[in-house]
């Protein structure tokens, strides 16, 4: 039988490297971004205006070129827009069709309408027009942005404690149920760090922005990661009773191996759905799906290779700052 628990140091090292890479990326982000945030924040959190638009040929004209970034910038600046960030979405089509995403500081509604008209006018000499049917526009005041940020932080904290509480309660019948809770939460923090790190890196490389949906994805993965952890914990709970007298390490490893094929099948199933959504789904949810995919992979990894081995390390007294407390748990097992 392959012994995952025995090789735990390697798995801890792998997790450590992943998390460290994420932390480096977050540090770079904090140093670079004006908001000093570990990830690139969307207007959901900081407020601002986001305009996604497409230019299409006028019905009776032959397009004479494509809209350029400079054109967009000059129109926006003339209306007093600041912190302008322009991104082209996809290639320029054969008919001069092109799609853009523009992010600026918060502009009021009237100004935005004027900008749309001005963009339309600017595109006319090129034989193009702003396509109002494929417009996506989002505008958030800084007040709402800061409220959302506050709610987000509270949500993560509340979720962590709720999950810890639930595990302690669900495993109340076995000795040291608190340890299970702590290990599950550590796995959860592992997943959060991996996801935020990945998001931070994607932000630096491809301009991905964390929005309210990113937060939703984060919390969902937290839920799933705990789900995985619980399945293995549950098996340990059962095996502890069945194989009494076996060393703890062996019971744990047996439990991991017994649930392994389930973990892999589950991962494959969810990956099927998410990969097809990521590759073929609508553009607006691609980042959300990407984040979920990374998180679910990390979630399965952390349950099997981090949370459970941590439990053993704790039992063997290899964790800093916490006692091993072997005598107490032994006698508790005997009583049970």
């Amino acid at each position, binding site marked *: 039988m392959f012994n995952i628990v025995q090789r735990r140091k390697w798995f801890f090292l792998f997790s450590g490297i992943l998390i460290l890479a994420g932390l480096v990326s977050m540090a770079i982000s904090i140093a670079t971004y004006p908001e000093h945030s570990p990830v690139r924040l969307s207007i959901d959190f900081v407020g601002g205006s986001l305009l996604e638009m497409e230019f299409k040929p006028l019905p009776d004209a032959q397009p004479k070129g494509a809209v350029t970034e400079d054109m967009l910038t000059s129109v926006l600046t003339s209306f007093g827009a600041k912190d302008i960030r322009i991104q082209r979405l996809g290639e320029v089509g054969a008919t001069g069709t092109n799609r853009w995403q523009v992010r600026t500081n918060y502009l009021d509604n009237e100004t935005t309408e004027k900008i749309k008209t001005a963009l339309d006018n600017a595109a006319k000499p090129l034989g193009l027009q702003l396509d109002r049917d494929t417009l996506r526009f989002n*505008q958030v005041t800084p007040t709402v942005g800061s409220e959302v940020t506050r709610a987000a932080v509270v949500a993560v904290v*509340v979720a962590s404690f709720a999950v810890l509480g639930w595990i302690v309660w669900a495993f109340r019948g076995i000795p040291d149920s608190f340890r299970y809770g702590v290990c599950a939460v550590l796995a959860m923090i592992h997943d959060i760090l991996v996801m935020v790190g990945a998001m931070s890196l994607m932000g630096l490389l491809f301009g991905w922005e964390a929005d309210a949906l990113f937060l939703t994805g984060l919390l969902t993965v937290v839920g799933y990661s705990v789900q995985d952890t619980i399945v293995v914990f549950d098996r340990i709970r059962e095996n502890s009773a069945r194989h009494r007298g076996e060393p703890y390490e062996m019971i744990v490893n047996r439990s991991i191996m017994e649930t392994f094929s389930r973990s892999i099948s589950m991962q*494959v199933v969810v990956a099927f759905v998410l990969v097809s959504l990521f590759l073929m789904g609508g553009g607006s949810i691609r980042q959300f799906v990407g984040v979920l995919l990374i998180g679910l992979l990390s979630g399965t990894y952390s349950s099997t290779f981090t949370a459970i081995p941590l439990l053993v390390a704790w039992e063997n007294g290899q964790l800093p700052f916490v006692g091993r407390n072997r005598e107490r748990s032994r006698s508790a097992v005997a009583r049970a």
Partner: protein
Amino acid sequence: MRNSTGLWLVVIAAITILALYMIWPGNPGLFGRPIEVRPGLDIQGGLRVLLAADVGVAVDAGKMDQAKQIVERRVNALGVVEPVVQVSGGNRIVVELPGIKDPQAAIDTVKQTGLLEFVDFAPTGSCTASMPGAGTYILTDRQVALRGTKPAGTAQATSAAGTPAATTAATTAITVTAPATATTVPATPTTAAATQAATAASTSAAPLFKRSEYQATAAPTAVATSQAATAAATPQATQAATAQATPAATTQATPVAASGTKDNPMLNPCTGQPFTTIMTGAGLQDATAGLVGQTASEWGVNFTLAGNEESQRFATHTSTHIGQPMAIVLDGQVLSAPVIQAALTTGGQITGNFTQQRAQELALQLRYGALPVPLHVESIEQVGASLGAESVQASVRAGILGVLVVGIFMLVYYRIPGLVADLALLLFAAINFALYKFIPVTLTLPAIVGFLISVGAAVDGNILIFERVREELRAGRSLDKAIQLGFTRAWPSIRDSNISTIIVALIVYFFGGQFGASAVRGFSVTLILGLITNLFTAVIVTHTFLNVLLSVGGDAVRRFNLFRVTPGTTEE
């Protein structure tokens, strides 16, 4: 065992039929309510606006609810199909308008307070100061009363005018000023100008604060302030003042701060007090937009009176003030100031150079009344109609493909039990879709993702059970026993793990409401529904189907290696 299987079969059949009935697109509804898909804004395109009460305005649940109802009625009158109007987080209103074509007009219609006032513009005594023209913002006693509860920026303002005592003082001031203007004719324009100066000087203060400041400045009296007053007055007031002033004074008269703007509304130049409102929109019975005027090319609003206290005051006023001007003021801005031609006892007409669209907006606002709290836009989300359609098509295609692959995987990996799990998965999808239509759940793209994620959980339940059954078979148990043990032993971990995800999804749902973000809520709702449904389909339905298979297939099934396991071999 067999009895309970039969019972469950009946339950499952009933649920399947009910779900299929609700999914059937042509269903005539259930319990008299329609069962339909409700596509979200990101799918069918539209506008989502988050409105918030202005900062500093005292709001309570009652006021917000009243505002919500008025917004709702205005929105309905826009002809939007299935709009959503909800109060969110105490002082906000979320408005969702699917498929709206002209977002700017919709936002204007919804957010404007719509406080219509008919204001007395008759000059006091022999006062000849010209009244504010169209487009000027003025302050009326009704506006003061409406915002009276407003804890204005400064504590001073509240204490100065918020109390009844202060109001009495103000009234007294009018009666004191009136005889003065009547006796000393040349002094009157100066007094008016002084008022203007006082108002203009305090540009940043709240309206009420200005008034009390005026009382302090104006008390010393007219002649002394003459020059300073002229220097700082508005164009209108300056005109009035120059009639009596020296040429030298006129050249000095450069308007410093224009009164009559939104932030700095004009007071009555004759009294130096807010204008007197005769009637508000509450006195109207109905209002409709229509062509008015001789040329019949100008748009206006025709109204009829309601016959209540307000409209009676209006009728009395118009009958006693024939030949005198009366202004029509919307949200503090003068629309027009016609001269009263005859007593208006049943209705009248509002003109003010409207376009057709503006006249219709106004009529709509008048019909449903003024908002009890001033609102402003806090966030806007707009999705073009065809954009949503494109991305939903792509996502649904991707989702179907993903689920299909999952189904094939189960079939290949588990064979016959896999087929059973696939049947349960189909039922799972049917029940969820039926629930979305029944509740109804607004289907946004994140909501679809939420459903697909829960498919993962549904299949996970089956995988847990089947793996467990295989283990029991390897341990040498009979098929019947192994299946039974597989279900009972896998149950705690399915239950516990689902509950942990449900807890997190509930937290997401709760905080998603705080963001006012429907995307977040949509995702968590479908996820929660999926997780709960899965407890039924993955466990009970699969178990029942397998039991049926055993009892129908009998020994043939038992001899057949259903789970492809060699008994007695463990992986160790």
